[in-house]
């Protein structure tokens, strides 16, 4: 492999990793807020209502878990796009 191609490969890998890491961070912050955040303020949120449930009960019983599921779905979908975008470059075919 020429030095030039090697440089490109390393750059593609670095960019891929940076974007993957940033997305992981965003999703973890969201996960922290919907899970731990709503429990921390559960007493304050209990005044609000969502489809008949008190908001804090709904978040603990269903909301946080559904957000987790959505986060995992977004992650799988976005990572596949990232992998495709950088995959060919990282293997030196671009």
């Amino acid at each position, binding site marked *: 492999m020429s030095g030039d191609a090697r440089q490109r490969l390393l750059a593609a*890998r670095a960019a891929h990793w940076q974007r993957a890491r940033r997305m992981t961070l965003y999703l*973890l912050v969201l996960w922290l807020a919907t899970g731990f955040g709503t429990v921390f303020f559960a007493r304050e949120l209990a005044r609000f209502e969502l489809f008949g449930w*008190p908001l804090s009960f709904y978040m603990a019983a*269903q909301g946080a*878990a559904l957000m987790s599921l959505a*986060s*995992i779905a977004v992650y799988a979908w976005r990572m596949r796009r990232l992998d495709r975008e950088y995959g060919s470059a990282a293997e030196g075919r671009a």
Partner: protein
Amino acid sequence: MSQQPRYFGKLSRYYLWYTGCFALFLVALAVLEQEGMPRLWIGYLFMFATIALYATIGVICRTSNVTEYYVAGRRVPALFNGMATAADWISAASFISLAGGLYLQGFDGLAFIMGWTGGFVLVALLIAPYLRKFAQYTIPDFLAARYGGGAGGRGAPVRALAVGATILVSFTYVVAQIYAVGLIASRFTGVDFSVGIFLGLASILVCSFLGGMRAITWTQVAQYIILLVAFLIPTMWLSVKHADNPIPQVAYGSLLPKLTALEADLARDPREEQVRAEFHRRAAEYAARADGLPESWEAGKVEAQRQLAAARARNGSLTEVRQAERALATYPNSVDEARALWIERRDANLERAKPPEPHATPFPGPTKEASDARRNNFLAVVFCLMFGTAALPHILMRAYTTPSVHETRVSVFWTLFFILLVYLTIPALAVLVKYDLYTSLIGSDFTSLPTWISYWANVDKANPLVSVADINGDGIVQLAEFAIDADVLVLATPEIGGLPYVISGLVAAGGLAAALSTADGLLLAISNALSHDVYYKIVQPNASTQKRVTISKLLLLAVAFIAAYAASQKPADILSLVAAAFSLAGSTLFPALVLGVFWKRANHQGALAGMVAGFAVCLFYMLRASPGLGGSALDTWFGILPMAAGVFGVPAGMLTVIVVSLLTAPPPRTSDAMVDYIRAPE
């Protein structure tokens, strides 16, 4: 590539057929019940038919190929891998006890729902895809390769520690599963507890012994279908009955305000207050006796002897004499024993003297501090369960079995999806059963108690699972007069809802499926750690593949029997053992796993120190803060319960890995290259 969709289609067809046959089996049994088949036979049929089914799948999938045996050939499609992992995950505790726990604890119980689902975000984002990219066989494999470049050649010290953690965590967990198998089998078929254990063990063994991961995966998919059907049918029935909506997850929102109104009425009801006052009186009596020790012990003993003598002297009826004899025989043997017993009774009575806590209110408490303490413990439990989930070897092992990294990510999605089908139903079931009992049982007449009460009250006479007694003598059931154990609620739900006995059998089969599927996965994780990591990688690196699989099978057999023996000893307080397993797993394995992927500077010494420190802090706190283990409940840090020790263990492990790594030499370039490889796009 074209192989995959065809394989997927074939599998889907098989499992659709299987589900259809299972439905037919249910209908046939329902018809037979109408024709008058005895209940015990239904119990037998469910138990033996399902165990025979799992064993058959095990025989069909038998294999001696290393890749098939350890990682199911790495060709399980994401959807099926998710379903199998969900069955692997849903343990006997979550199937049988969790809804009961929510019924008793209200909002506090939701910590288990949050903790046991949220952890999969950590699995999906931080660990599973990287493990799949690495593409070996076990969790110690990964840690040894990542940290093994430094001291110790092939990373034997890290591997040995990881194996130790895997075995310790999985073993405590598997004992709890086998215990549950024995319990269900003995309750529904009337066989002895230890016979039940060995029956269950036989089916676990046929399956994992012959086919390893491959057989386990396909059995677990079958088990998932049974446990899902078993959990949904009674819940949907109750949901239609009380909310005219067959989707319980949606329907119970409309019941919650009604339940809250009922609870408020019950808290003010004068008859309820009467009963609670009686419990207060009993508690005060025990408190007075405990305070009057040691004289009160002497006096009580003399009184018991006098009662017996009096009953004999006046030629009392046989039951009278028996009662007096029993009272004397169970009288505490010493002053210390009396103190422990009376304080326990005092607390139990005080507990029952409390008005019902509102189900949907977060953290009720008399003061702001008490309420805050409950919130902090809720958060700590959620934290431990989440990080424990992300470090349980039998779940992470599943990341290796899919065809690609992308499929692993999708498979974690399906895992959580299938778990949520059950886990979102659990809080609904708790509310539905509570509403049902509050509207039908409470306020009814003592002469017309439903039959399920006497059935479940007589299962375990020493510690009744259900108890109803007319405390204030008004002939009407008050809420304070009724007590139910968390473990009974799900098993009794079909009878509470008035469903035919077939559904009770189905629920028992579901509980059995949950326990067996988890036990399968755990036993394989243990035997793989021993055969692959200890025997092949450390003791005998040039063993032939044939020999490795044979050794693994023999070890599996040995571990299974040791676990069954441990379960047959009926270890005390099995639920806290499971909670301890989560804290220990999170504290020991999570820091090394995640920093291994996300921080290149983490090195061999750091990982070793971090694993030891996380484990030690976690164990130290458990011992220090649990009264049962020689500690004291006053010695807590920030009022956190010992069950949530991982809340200190995980950060301690993380910090230690970072500090020790920075103080020692950076890892060699081979480790860097490996990290680059697992991070790189597919």
